[in-house]
């Protein structure tokens, strides 16, 4: 294995010069993005420094408590963010989104750790569990927010067709099926596209990190594929889960489509 080149803080300072290119474009074209650019760069630096610090603490702990806590916090933040990105809300959707995020990422990560990697250490060893969970969550977030938004939009805008089916004796599931199918597709298409493009159009972030950290390319590629499959699994579970949760929340106990529960946000 090639040795990892250590990255000192002064090196990061040099890297920060690259952001000056953005600043130059901003100045020349008068985009008015100066404050935002500064804020984004500082935020990224602070957040990653915090992540490094927290992971350092977590890596030193023994027992599953710390990993479970990190999982809970990350899934909660991701669940809230998935709803916040959408243009419509329905009561109960935050809890549902967090729950779906937790279950789907936890299921996929445990499968990856216990079955695929079959690591000799306990499954909750933070060095494996936390990064895998982070990759799955970050990508499931995308699918879940797209699927959720498409589902609520579908029920809201396609109400007449859903009710046409209901009025002719369809069950809730039969009436909702066209909307659910469209929403699930919308949630899953980005990861399918990513799988098609990977390696040809882009060198994925995880593999880049591994290569820079000294891993040999074949191992890095294998890990990347494993991560990609784990992400695809997380996205599929999460998208289906949140789309079904949305269905439950917009229908009532007599299978009535309650569009009055859907709140549109100002865009």
């Amino acid at each position: 294995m090639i040795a990892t080149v250590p990255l000192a803080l002064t090196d990061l300072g040099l890297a920060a010069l690259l952001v000056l290119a953005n600043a130059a474009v901003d100045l020349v074209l008068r985009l008015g993005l100066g404050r935002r650019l500064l804020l984004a760069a500082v935020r990224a630096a602070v957040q990653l420094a915090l992540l490094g610090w927290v992971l350092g603490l977590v890596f030193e702990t023994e027992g599953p408590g710390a990993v479970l806590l990190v999982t809970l916090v990350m899934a909660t933040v991701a669940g809230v963010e998935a709803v916040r990105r959408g243009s419509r809300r329905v009561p109960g959707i935050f809890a549902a989104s967090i729950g779906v995020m937790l279950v789907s990422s936890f299921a996929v990560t445990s499968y990856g750790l216990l079955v695929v990697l079959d690591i000799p250490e306990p499954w909750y060893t933070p060095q494996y569990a936390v990064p895998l969970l982070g990759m799955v969550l970050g990508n499931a977030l995308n699918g879940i927010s797209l699927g959720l938004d498409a589902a609520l939009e579908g029920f809201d805008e396609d109400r007449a067709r859903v009710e046409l089916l209901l009025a002719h004796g369809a069950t809730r599931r039969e009436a909702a099926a066209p909307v659910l199918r469209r929403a699930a597709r919308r949630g899953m298409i980005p990861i399918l596209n990513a799988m098609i493009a990977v390696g040809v159009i882009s060198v994925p972030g995880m593999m880049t990190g591994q290569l820079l950290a000294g891993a040999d390319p074949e191992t890095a590629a294998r890990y990347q594929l494993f991560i990609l499959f784990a992400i695809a699994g997380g996205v599929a579970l999460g998208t289906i889960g949140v789309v079904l949760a949305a269905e439950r929340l917009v229908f009532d106990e007599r299978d009535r489509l309650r569009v009055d529960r859907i709140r549109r946000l100002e865009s």
Partner: protein
Amino acid sequence: MGSLEVRGLTRAPWWRDLDLALKEGEIAVLRGPSGSGKTLLLRALADLDPVDAGEVSLDGRAREATAPPMWRRAVRYAQQGAPCLPGTVEENVAAVATLLNVSPTPAPGLDPRADAGRLSGGEAQRLALHRALLGAPKVLLLDEVTAALDRDAAAEAEARVQAFAREGGSVLWVSHDVALAQRLGAREVSL
């Protein structure tokens, strides 16, 4: 078959303590100013909208004792605006026939291969009435289903509804056509 009873139905602020009885074979025309909740009443009877209070029963059986899909098969609502499913006229009829577990029958006066999304308002209403009559419902709740039809087509639609009533079905029909009740020999109900 087809005796619908409504007691104390309330949906504030539209209507309160509404009583209504439709006997077998009876056609009633529901009238009232715009915004008085006529469509809302039909939707509530089809169990597509909730009410604040009240009871609805069909042939003496309470609505709550019937599963929603079974209730809506029996108490059939034809929506205002006559929306269509994607696909052709034939596919629209087939989709509904499959839900109702009956054989599809061709919609009279319509090209079965026509794209349902491109039908005129009147054609869509003919399709909607045809769908609503599939699978022998007991009650028809019609929401302006002939508003876009010319006189001949409207007469044909009215004849289909009258034939349905002669077989024991009951009908509650929302219409702005002032002469409809008289033509059908129907009772008028005001909201």
